[in-house]
């Protein structure tokens, strides 16, 4: 089963189960944060789910809302089909009924306790279903990659970037750059 099929079937399966299981999956996504500017790629629901996800994944002291807006910016560069897939993936991650089937939980991700959310992350990470693992890694990596563009996170890991201005001061004249050395 490829990723797109998984996402579509997962969403469709979720919908069927919603009909069958009544209110269980009708529990709405919890609003965990407020966007600070307009979203381009992420839906309102996806924003909430990704903030909840990022809050568990990011190092302490990170601004999850800022990171999720950064993810939204980064996704602008991706093809439109990837936008749809990303929102579908977050929908599946949030949905309680697929969560019940795969992870044994009865609440949407955004309504779980931090410890229960961490357990869901591990379920996805260690899943025997390949597309759950790659989906989890895609979410994890993009959040962390965006987070670490923030210079505030560099001191705790010892990274010391060279300041641009100091290099500009000693850079050789680029008028030579268009000719052979």
């Amino acid at each position, binding site marked *: 089963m490829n990723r797109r099929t998984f996402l579509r079937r997962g969403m469709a399966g979720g919908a069927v189960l919603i009909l069958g299981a009544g209110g269980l999956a009708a529990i709405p996504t919890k609003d965990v944060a407020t966007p600070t500017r307009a979203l381009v790629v992420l839906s309102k629901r996806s924003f909430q789910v990704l903030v909840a996800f990022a809050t568990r994944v990011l190092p*302490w002291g990170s601004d999850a809302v800022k990171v999720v807006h950064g993810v939204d910016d980064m996704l602008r560069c991706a093809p439109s*089909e990837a936008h749809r897939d990303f929102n579908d993936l977050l929908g599946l991650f949030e949905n309680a009924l697929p969560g019940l089937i795969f992870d044994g939980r009865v609440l949407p991700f955004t309504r779980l306790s931090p410890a229960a959310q961490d357990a869901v992350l591990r379920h996805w990470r260690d899943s025997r279903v390949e597309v759950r693992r790659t989906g989890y*890694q895609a979410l994890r990596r993009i959040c*962390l990659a965006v987070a670490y563009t923030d210079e505030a996170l560099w001191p705790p890991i010892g990274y010391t970037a060279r300041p641009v201005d100091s290099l500009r001061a000693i850079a050789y004249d680029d*008028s030579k750059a*268009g000719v052979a050395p």
Partner: protein
Amino acid sequence: MTKLALVRASKNVVDGSTSGDLDLKAEVCVVGTGAGGAVTAAVLAEAGLDVLMLEEGGYYTSDDFTMREKDSLPHLYQEGGARATKDLAISILQGRAVGGTTVVNWTTCFRTPEDVVAHWRDAHDVKGFAYADLVPHWEAIEKRLAIAQVDESTLNANNRKLFDGCKKLGWSVETLRRNVHACMQTGYCGLGCPVNAKRSMLVTMVPDAIDAGARLVFRARADRLERRGNAITKLEATLLDSAGIAPTGKKLTVTAKRFVMSGGAINSPALLLRSGIDDEGRVGARTFLHPAVGSAAVYDDDVFPYAGAPQSAASHHFAHRGGEVGFFLEASAWYPSLMGGAAPGFGGEHLAFLKDTNKTAVHVAIAIDGFHDEVAGGRVGLRPSGAPVLDYPISAHLWRALRFAHKRMAELQFASGAKEVRTLHDPGVVVRAPGDVDRVLDAAPFAIGRVPVFTAHQMGGCAMGDDRARAVVRSEDLRHHAIENLYVIDGSVFPTSLGVNPQESIYGLARLMATRLAARK
């Protein structure tokens, strides 16, 4: 105004984001300004041809290069650095700007190995040129780009660990040749050289082409070629906004005697596919990636893996492994976003991995795909929107090679004094002693979504060769087998991967083929 800024401000350069509809004519239209396109355009323009270059990305210079990923990723990389294979198993690092990937590569230069050229001749009917034909073109490029072997004394600690580890184990290892002049060892090659020390296409062949009269339209995404019989009659492109994302609503139409595709692997075959040119499935097939895995090792002494030239040593000791897939070993650049995304775990586990950054060396094993039936590359296809997508299956054969390569990386890291080796598996895998390498890595899962795989070298998809039933373009001139004015001159024509970093192979081949093309004007 600096020389480069003057070039960008030339009347020959058009910013598509601020332009109205354009209807342009040229003798030769070159799509792409990376290693293939820039060289081709410069050679043809210097020969007196009327050349028009198109580039989807932006035109940035060193003044724009801030050494910060938040600025470089969205502007200099395909899909903002988030391009990946269809199943998300392999992250694809590929440039998107005037100068192409050469703006963000790590400056490593190799001529195409002689045995690879011979293999192409014997196994893929590449009879249009010989290794000796490429040599004078490599020599000319090496002079223009200041390609020279670095002195061992300049290796940063990350490369030094690789070099020393290989030496101690008796493995072949060498210092690398880099295309730099007056390199200040900033370490930021992958984010755009801030001091123009890197002799990328941005600072060499693109200005050369423009100086010789070539025109350039950037922020112009080539959508499709219009074919009539055995000829391309025109090219249609969409002009993009200043961010390079949204169409402005304006169009570019180009009519030319000849069209040269130089968008690189993935993008060149995608343009042909969007144009209805699939050559019975050959276009997009056999796309190669040099799939790579990384290994981090923690030392007692300082490494500062982000300081200094990111790549200056390599080992090809395991390049030829008979029936098994070969690989080569190099050091990796280290940038906070790159490693933040690659490091395993979340929360405390993730932070613990990165906390040892300054004492960590990161090395990569790069698999040589395309030489075994079980590792025959991937296939470029199109999404409904027309955007390319690469389906690249990782076979058991390739996973076996990546596991074997991981073991060798761990061995060389311990040999150079590592106290602990950490793979990039998630959850993390740690080898704490040399004697544990086999046991730990035999137990580690090598599967999609368990260990990250990435590529910085994309090749193939429009294979050259003289058997038109197997190849897309002829090897004598890289002209399409059936379409008489359509050429592909970039890394997509390689019928296998190279086994070495690809930029100089593309430069040499492009210069040879452009020289032949110019002679036919």
